[in-house]
């Protein structure tokens, strides 16, 4: 990392990077829809700029030479963290529902779901 952060985040640098980055407003709209976020046009514009900056910052990693280094999905030198199949106490329904905005009996209540999609 040769650049210091202040200069990296300067407006000028960002606009340069916008040219060769795949993130654009339509993608931000798409991700917002997937995350069920309602964003104004101004917010979409701002998030596009921010996301470009964040991704650009992370992109610096690609400057490192990683030839011969095994792909990893985790920074910890651990695997097989397993537990026995033994029951632990659960919360009571009252505890589980304590912060629910809406409840019926011991159910969570949510706004009516119309179409049944899911995983």
């Amino acid at each position, binding site marked *: 990392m040769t650049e210091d952060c202040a200069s990296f985040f300067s407006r000028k640098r960002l606009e340069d990077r916008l040219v060769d980055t795949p993130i654009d407003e339509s993608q931000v709209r798409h991700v917002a829809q997937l995350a069920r976020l309602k964003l104004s046009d101004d917010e979409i514009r701002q998030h596009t700029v921010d996301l470009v900056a964040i991704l650009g910052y992370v992109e610096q990693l690609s400057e490192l030479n990683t030839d011969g280094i095994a792909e990893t999905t985790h920074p910890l030198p651990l695997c097989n963290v*397993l*537990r026995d199949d033994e029951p632990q106490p659960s919360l009571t329904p009252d505890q*589980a529902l304590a912060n629910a905005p809406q409840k019926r009996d011991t159910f969570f209540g949510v706004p009516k779901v119309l179409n049944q*999609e899911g995983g």
Partner: protein
Amino acid sequence: MSALKRSMTEPGITFRTIIGLEVHVQLRTKTKLFCGCLLEFAALPNSLTCPVCLGLPGALPVMNREAVRLAIRLGKALNCTIADFAKWDRKSYYYPDLPKNYQISQYDKPLCQEGWLDVPGEDGVGRVGIQRAHLEEDAGKNIHDTPGCTLVDLNRTGTPLLEIVTRPDLTSADQAYAFCTELQKLATYLSVSEGSMQKGQMRFEPNVNLAIVRDGIEYRTPISEIKNLNSFKAVRAAIEYETRRQLQDWMADNSYLFGERPHENRGWNDGRQVTELQRSKEQAHDYRYFPDPDLVSVEVGRNAALQGELNRPIDELPVARCLRFQAEYGLSANDAETILAERATADLFERAVEAGAPPKVAAKQFVNVWSKLANEYRRSIAELGIEAKRIGALAKMVEQNTVSASAAKTVAAAMLDSTDGPDFLAEQLGLIQVVDEEELAKWVDAAIAANEKAVQTILTNPKKAKASEGFLRGQVMKISSGKADPGRAGELIAKRVAGLKDQED
């Protein structure tokens, strides 16, 4: 099916059905996949949750070793390669039954890969390829039928599932049905799953399309995925319906083709027996998988318990065991299948044989005596809780004519309420077969005297003689309260009747 056959005969058109299946099998653990909440069906809603399965901030999941072991066991039985390295990924989507807004699943490094399952069918055994089988957590339950709001019960969130994905090798609704039932047998037999359809422990999603050939040119219809079927019957009916529908839709509009029309998600309407197109929002399948930073990898070779499961020889599977029961014990195929319907019962049978039970007699008792008692109590034979030694002893008594087969039923019933051996109980109930010739003669004479008509039939009507002899033998058993040896009673009846005939001649 008849409608199908008719449409197949339209000139110049033939088609075949291409089916792949995704099956979710609930693993038989006590607790959830990533937390210690108990798995219990129909518990009070939201009484089996904790910060982990509610997806509360800061809670950390920890893998249940038993779930991984069971997945390895079923994966091996499906002839899969068990990965040295498997990892966990987040599958993101929004739905009220998924409190974290992502499901923990395995995307590019599943635990089990590339296997097969042989499925018996009318034209012999068909081999169905398994593309992969991966572990994942279940979602909760939404209840939509309350006006004004949807109710959510999160007891089921985090239930361990093995999702098994087949190759599109299945060619008919019947074969898909057979695959699902075979898989259930295998999973329950290996104690990997309880396999209860009532509790929703197996759920099926067929992918169906057609390859239609007209004038030597092949056309493929769009693939439809039928979501969340929860019975074998629904699997068969939904695929049959979908086959008809796709053929009709293609005939009505020849541009109804794979690649030109989108992949369809369809739901099965059991009441109307039709599939219905589900409105799915654009991009609903953008799950944005990425590795779960809260969970480390599963590396079977580096854990003794997991490696032990991998090394364990695969248990003898039901088909092989059925053949062995016939060859080794001389059982009929029917008796062997009845005993093998439940694994614990089959194990009990073998332990009884080891304890000295004559196999054929013991098998008859499993089929005729123990299964009836088990039905009365709505349990399996094994769940009756009778020790193999006592079951074996009763079979031996019948073999040695100490009690009659019918008296053995009474003894068996008495064994349920007692820890005493069958010999003691038979003695107490007065069911020990009497070898005393004099007593037997008294019973036989009494039966003959009271049933003049049957005797006359034997003497005059050869066609009905056998039946009447059987009737008299039954009367002897009745008079003796089951104490007579039916074989010897039969002999004596024949002798006495022959004597009467001599007198008449």
